[in-house]
């Protein structure tokens, strides 16, 4: 069960009610999410676990406004996502959400600095300001000396650090990470996790999808999905205890 006490005292960043997602294939209806109810609070660090095909990525994509649910309600802050236009969804993705992908997803023809700047570019941040902030973020993830390198010149761990810097560009409300360490060895993986921990310590809301118990162990709460439903929720972190 989700954390019961702090509901009234803390702001829910994300709230989903009876969220459903089905794919309508030619000969069948494939129900992937079968009614999920959840709330994520400001400053929370939540992990989502579950067997392959249980709908974790699907859920994360919906939370990231990349995908649309086929039923239920999704409130992000004060916005009901179902009511927003495509342009407004783009704006939400750009301003409110920071994505970190398993396969890094940097743009190969841009250098590191430009990759970090992309998200700000679409929010009309002036060039000078964009530059300043991108350099600051690159410095923060320890890549100040790699600004003009192209992504393929970096190691996986370094690429993922660029992705973290990029996700922070517009100071988002939540960070969504889909198996951020899935493609990394344990050393660079733990560096990345260290960074996520630090971000959360600074107050960022983070939702991370993972197969790794060690990753889940660092989070305050773990939502276990099974076949499109919440199987159980494991509470462990400070999110509830300090309420």
């Amino acid at each position, binding site marked *: 069960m989700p954390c019961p006490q702090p509901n009234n005292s803390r702001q829910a960043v994300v709230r989903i009610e009876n969220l459903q997602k089905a794919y309508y294939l030619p000969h069948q209806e494939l129900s992937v999410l079968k009614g999920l109810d959840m709330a994520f609070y400001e400053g929370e660090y939540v992990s989502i676990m579950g067997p392959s095909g249980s709908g974790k990525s699907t859920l994360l*994509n919906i939370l*990231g406004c*990349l*995908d649309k649910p086929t039923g239920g309600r999704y409130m992000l802050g004060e916005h009901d996502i179902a009511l927003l236009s*495509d*342009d407004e969804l*783009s*704006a939400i*993705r*750009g*301003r409110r959400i920071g*994505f970190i*992908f398993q396969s890094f*997803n*940097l*743009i*190969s*023809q841009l250098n590191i600095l430009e990759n970090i700047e*992309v*998200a700000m*570019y*679409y*929010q*009309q941040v*002036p*060039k000078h300001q964009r530059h300043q902030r991108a350099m600051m973020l690159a410095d923060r993830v320890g890549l100040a000396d790699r600004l003009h390198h192209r992504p393929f010149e970096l190691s996986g761990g370094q690429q993922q650090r660029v992705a973290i810097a*990029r996700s922070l560009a*517009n100071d988002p409300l939540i960070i969504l990470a889909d198996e951020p360490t899935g493609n990394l060895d344990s050393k660079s993986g733990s560096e990345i996790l260290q960074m996520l921990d630090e971000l959360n310590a600074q107050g960022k809301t983070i939702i991370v999808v993972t197969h790794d118990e060690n990753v889940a162990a660092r989070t305050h709460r773990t939502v276990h999905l099974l076949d499109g439903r919440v199987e159980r929720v494991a509470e462990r972190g400070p999110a509830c205890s300090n309420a």
Partner: protein
Amino acid sequence: MLERMTGVVQVSLRSLWMHRLRSGLTMLGIVFGVSSVIAMLAIGEGASQQAQEQIAHLGSTNIIIKTVKPPDIEIGDADSGQTIQEYGLRYDDAERFRETIPDAQVVVPVRRQPQQTQYRSRRVTAELVGTVAWYPELVPIEIRMGRFLSPLDLHYNQAVCVIDEMLLDILFRVDDPIGQQLKIAGEYYLVVGIVREAAVASQEDKQEFARNTRGSGVNGKIYIPITTMKSRIGETQIQFGGSTGSSGEKVELSEITIKVPAMERVIPTRDVLSSMLEQFHKKKDYQIIVPLELLRQAARTKRIFSIVLGSIAAISLLVGGIGIMNIMLATVSERTREIGIRRALGARKKDIVIQFLSETVLLTLIGGLLGMALGACIPILVTVFGKMPTVITPEAMILSFGISAGIGLTFGLYPAYHAANMDPIESLRHE
């Protein structure tokens, strides 16, 4: 806004540069299309300007009747061993036109003949033009010094002459020509004026004219009263041949030019002249030239060129455009992942459209500029080797630029929308 635009252009240029071979090959269609547009317009414009210049020279309301030697000329007095061929326009033709054709505002008879002319020790063959005082009313003539022939000169068969600048340069290098005596066909004429006939065409044409006339030994023109020419030089030219004895030609007038008051009157008057000449000339020893028809001919030339080159241009632009669309679709599918990433990072559909559209338009604009450069070379080659005048107008350049941009927009729109409407999730999953 400007910063954003230059940003978009920069990104597009970079991605075009990354695939420069592909970009280069893709723009070939546009390059050839645009260059044929430029060439077409330049040739068409050249033809019509040339026609206009010719008409300005010949006069759009003039009708020119020229004496031509009929092919089946009769042998006059075969027995005497002397043959005089008599043909061509006569004074009574000119007289008849003046009296019977109401639209004939001005009638100018002209007789031309190459003649030896001499000033001091300099001797040269020039074209002797016997004409009337009102000759300048038909052919634009600029008086540089002195005066043209006067009615009194004609009336009294004065031995005066007016020479053109070309002859001036040859005969009088430093002397003041006015008042000097020029020896023509053995008799002396007083120089009373220097004239320049309106430029026939460009400088090159003039040089070519000079070259040609030097070949035939004619250097410049001498205008004298036609009455003087008749009385002093006569109308018969005798050539002393070998076995057949001497032969001669008797031609009264080389040409008669008639000016009508308006362009609409040109064709009707031509018809009247034609039937009148048929009646009084048994042989066809004349030719009617209507400058206005040159204009029609030029328009026809221009139209043919426009159709031929226009079709080449249209096909090549269409094929080029489709090629570009094809490549852009390939580019879009190659960059599906990038599109997904950009969408996840907050790019609106509009942003994606702008990105790909600007890439296509830049591609076609670069192609268009190259096409313009190439297109500017083709007319030069046409002028040098095809001996056709060409004119590249700024309008043609602007039009070509517009066409390139238009092709980019037209054929870039579909790939750009295709890119923008891809599902972000599927794009992100794309390998």
